[in-house]
């Protein structure tokens, strides 16, 4: 008899809790993965593919799935720092296998040399080059992300990557190194063996 009471009591308890959890799981359902959106918003959207993924969104998905967050040369250290803060991971130096951080550049087409082959237009991931077949092309400077992808296909090598001059509006103070990072003035302390 006691055993029967015990079984019924525990079953009743479990049933109540089960109903509670079932209700809560309906109420608190989550769709999609909002983390990917937040990562994607931090990435520079150059769509350059230097990370080994076809664009920034696929790389954001890969980071969310656990890939290292230091493969984005256009974003540089600042992007890595922001991603580390967002994801609670440690700061990592830029993975040099995927390229080095550089000053921001934009493509510039030497227009009198352009033969109008449209190859650079097809290569541009952000549609920043305008022009038509047999007509001169040019780059919309504000749209160009400096990804270098148009330089390679040009048959007459008339595209230059020119650094964007730093103006009072675009200058920003360099961020201090994060936890685990070393300032440039760091003096190592020798361990006494």
């Amino acid at each position, binding site marked *: 008899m006691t055993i029967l009471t015990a079984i019924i*009591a525990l079953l009743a*308890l479990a049933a109540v809790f089960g109903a509670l959890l079932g209700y809560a799981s309906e109420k608190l359902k989550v769709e999609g993965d909002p*983390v990917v959106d937040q990562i994607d918003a931090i990435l520079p959207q150059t769509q350059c593919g230097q990370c080994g993924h076809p664009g920034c969104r696929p790389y954001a998905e890969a980071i*969310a799935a656990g890939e290292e967050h230091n493969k984005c040369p256009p974003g540089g250290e600042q992007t890595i720092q922001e991603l580390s803060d*967002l*994801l609670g991971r440690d700061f990592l130096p830029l993975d040099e296998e995927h390229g080095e951080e550089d000053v921001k550049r934009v493509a510039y087409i030497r227009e009198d040399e352009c033969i109008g082959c449209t190859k650079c237009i097809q290569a541009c991931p952000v549609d920043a080059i305008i022009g038509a077949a047999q007509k001169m092309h040019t780059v919309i400077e504000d749209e160009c992300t400096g990804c270098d992808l148009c330089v390679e296909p040009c048959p007459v090598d008339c595209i230059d990557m020119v650094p964007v001059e730093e103006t009072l509006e675009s200058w920003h103070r360099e961020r201090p190194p994060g936890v*685990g990072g070393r300032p440039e003035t760091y003096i190592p302390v020798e361990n006494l063996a």
Partner: protein
Amino acid sequence: MTEYVLILISAVLVNNFVLVQFLGLCPFMGVSNKVETAMGMSLATTFVLTLSSVLSYLVYAWLLEPLALEYLRTIAFILVIAVAVQLTEMFVRKASPLLHRVLGVFLPLITSNCAVLGVALLNIRQTEPSFMSSLTYGLGAALGFSLVLVLFAAMRERIAAADVPVAFRGPAIGLITAGLMSLAFMGFSGLVRI
């Protein structure tokens, strides 16, 4: 009122669950790499501890005791804790997907955090267990856990940037730090007696 203040001080400082009673050491060592993560874990654990402390008291007082089923308390409490953790997990996933990702496996592991079961079991061993005293005890235990977890995480952040001798790097210096903190907390013994 004084009674509850005493229970609170006792649970937070004098009988701190982590550093004096050595319960819940897994998240203490596992989630203390960054202060922000530690804060998130503290909040989640605080919620679970307080909720499960109260719920398990209610289950004990309203179900197990009237039916003379006190011997089933451990299994009933584990059920209560599992439900509380599951609820918290759902809520965190909804409210803060990032925190959910950062806490990762440690969130469901609150279920097996022995401090949570410890609080539930120690609760009914008080001289006069009541709803308010179990609430205070659970909250106190949670605050004590949060306090040492955040303190420890802050120290580990400093240690990560410090020039530690090679042989002591990583978990070794962490354990030494935890031991020193524990020694420090033993200084509170004798502050209150209940």
